[in-house]
Structure formats: structure tokens, C-alpha cells
């Protein structure tokens, strides 16, 4: 019991310190967010492949990562997937860490991106991100990350990962509408509610990530 309280206290201190030293974050007019259905995802990793294809990545960096979470004791076991790329946080940890100002957050849709001409490959953002989103490209010597396929969004389409998802469990949409349940998406089934945090996911208070999940019953943090 004592360990739990001290852990909570530590977390609170970390959050406080983080808020204290941070900059004034960009307030986007509309924040786009990913939504992922942890239960229906089959872990085929087509989204990962589509992403690597779009971004022309060498082996090594993977902007989108499908993670298996499993537990229980045989024969009562469970497994679900958590699918994450860059969460385009409301208060990105990577942004103030960048010494050259290469990382920026777009005003119109809240997308966080790296200006590759300014990146010097110091990899500080890689260390600060709680989700492992910025990743070092060993061939070009700079850090790259998911930009939610900005070009596709500006052309009125969805990102490659969303379009590649054969189970339709991954989608993007305005974060407030997704949270309110008013945004029409195949990723959220009838009667399902999205949550901002699942087990093994970093505390969303740290960076206010723009990702929502339909959680597995064993993956709920509120249960």
C-alpha cells in the first residue's frame, strides 16, 4: 500500500515538474487524433508496412508499432494489441527538447512534425518521447517520425496506415468529436466508448497525447 502511494506521489511530482519547465504549447484550432480498437485488431501489421512504404524507411525505424499485450495463466489467457505511432500530443515532450527548433506543431490540425532540413540528428527527442515515436534513421543520420501523412490529409484523404487497415480498427478524426462519440468511424463499434489510457500506456497527463482506444476488458485502467 505504501509503495502505491509513493508511486502516485512520484508521478505527481514528475507531472508538476514537466508542466513547470515547459513552454506555452500551440493551441491548435482542431486536433486530429488516432483512434484504435484494441480488441478487434488482429495484429497483421499491414499499417506498419504501409507506413514504411509511404515514408521509404530502411530497416530499423518503424513509425507505427503494433504491440501485443498478453496476460493471464494458461488456460485462462487474453491478448490484445495496442497500436501506436506518433500521438501528436497536445503538449509534445519532443518539441521543447529540440535544440534547433526543427519540431513544430501545426496550428490548423495539431499535427507534430519534424523539419528534416533543421534536424541535426542529436536524438534528444527520441529520449524524451514517452511513446518512442521519433526514431533515428541510420541511413540519413536524422530523426524522423510520423507526420500523420500531412500530404494525404491536405489532399482530403486519410493516412496510409488507416487506409491499409483491413479490419478498419484504425482511424483518425477530430479528437473532441471522437471523445464525444459524435464522429462516425468504423473503429468504434456501436455501444463502445473510447478511453484516453490503457494499461502499460504512459500517463496521458504528461503530454496529452491525441490517441484514443477502444480498450480490451483486461486493458482498462479504470476497471
Amino acid at each position, binding site marked *: 500500500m505504501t509503495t502505491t502511494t509513493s508511486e502516485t506521489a512520484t508521478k505527481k511530482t514528475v507531472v508538476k515538474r514537466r508542466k513547470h519547465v515547459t513552454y506555452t504549447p500551440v493551441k491548435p484550432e482542431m486536433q486530429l487524433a488516432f483512434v484504435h480498437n484494441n480488441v478487434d485488431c488482429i495484429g*497483421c501489421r499491414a499499417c506498419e508496412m504501409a507506413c514504411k512504404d509511404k515514408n521509404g524507411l530502411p530497416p530499423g*525505424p518503424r513509425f507505427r508499432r503494433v504491440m501485443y499485450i498478453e496476460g493471464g495463466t*494458461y488456460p485462462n489467457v487474453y491478448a490484445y494489441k495496442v497500436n501506436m505511432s506518433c500521438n501528436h500530443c497536445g503538449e509534445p515532450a519532443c518539441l521543447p527538447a529540440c535544440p534547433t527548433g526543427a519540431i513544430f506543431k501545426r496550428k490548423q490540425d495539431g499535427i507534430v512534425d519534424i523539419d528534416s532540413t533543421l534536424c541535426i540528428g542529436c536524438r534528444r527527442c527520441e529520449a524524451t518521447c514517452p511513446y518512442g515515436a521519433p526514431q533515428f534513421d541510420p541511413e540519413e543520420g536524422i530523426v524522423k517520425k510520423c507526420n500523420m501523412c500531412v500530404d494525404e490529409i491536405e489532399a482530403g484523404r486519410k493516412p496510409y496506415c488507416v487506409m491499409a487497415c483491413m479490419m478498419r480498427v484504425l482511424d483518425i478524426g477530430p479528437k473532441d468529436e471522437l471523445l464525444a462519440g459524435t464522429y462516425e468511424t468504423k473503429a468504434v463499434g456501436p455501444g463502445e466508448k473510447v478511453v484516453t489510457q490503457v494499461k502499460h500506456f504512459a500517463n496521458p497527463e504528461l503530454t496529452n497525447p491525441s490517441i484514443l482506444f477502444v480498450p480490451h476488458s483486461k486493458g482498462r485502467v479504470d476497471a
Partner: protein
Amino acid sequence: MHRAGHYQGLKKTQYGYPIPYIPKWIEPWESLNSPKTNKYPFHLISPHPRWRTHSIFNNCSWLRETYEQEVTMNASDARRLGIKMGDVVEIWNERGKVVVPVYVTERCMPGVAVLFEGAWMDLDGQGVDRAGNPDFLTLDSPSPAGAFAYNTVLVDIQKTDLDHRPVWDKVGTSRAYVFRRDM
């Protein structure tokens, strides 16, 4: 009227093995019922891998990142043998030996080991496959009906110092590998 036992007769296939007239389960050459389990206690199955088509696309580096050639075994078996997730193990029986990393999970039945088929072999000087192709462990004789009996194989597993060579280097510069799985 058919007499009882009429359909229970056995006929011999062109491969010389007796099989029943109607489809029913018969004891395989190797199974967990056989006395060979004293020596080789694990039932090895070799399903189709998700990240290649049999052995095709095994050299595609993007696909090599998604999953890797490894043996899946139950956590209680692993605990008993002192094996932890990611350890390199050798799997062997009287036919051959392969070396692969291990994936320990509760989602696998105890007594069963899973090694995906189709890995490109990489033999060392002693005839040990460093890449982990289960073809080195499977039976050389066909099933009674002439199929390949690749899911009834008895093996043993232990931790090893032998070299595992996945024929593809994980690039150590990315955190991607660290985030691949989460227990």
C-alpha cells in the same frame, strides 16, 4: 444389415501403412502418448508464419522486423527449464538440431513448442541449423496417406551457447525493437 465392425477393418495405402476406412483419429508416429516423450518431452508444431509465405519473402527486411523466427513455449515449461524470454535455445531430436530465440507466453499449451516453418537454413560445421528451420526436426517418412507429418514431432529444448544467426541484423539504432512486445 451391417455387422458391427464391418467398417472397422483396415486397408493399406500405397505407402504401405494401414488406415481405417472411415476418417478417425489414429495414433501418430510421434505424440505425447508415445514412450519417446521420456527423451523428447515437447510436441513441436510448425504452423505457417505470418510474416512470410512459407519461405518466400524471408529476405524482405521490412517483414523481418514485424516478427522473428523464434520458438514459442509455455511459461511454466520455460520456468522449469530456467528459460527466459529472448534466451537462445536449442531444439533437437534424433534427426537434427536448430538454434533459435525463445518467446515465452501463457498463450501456448504446456508441453507444446511452436516453431514457424520456412526459415532459410544456415548450417554451421556440425550440421546444426542456426536459422531455426523446423525441417531439420520433422519426420522423414510420410503420414499413412502420404502427407508430410510436420505437426507431430517430438523434440527437447534447452538453453544453449550455440550461435543463432537470423541472417538479418537488427539495426541497433532504433527503439522500434524495444517496443515490439510488452508483457
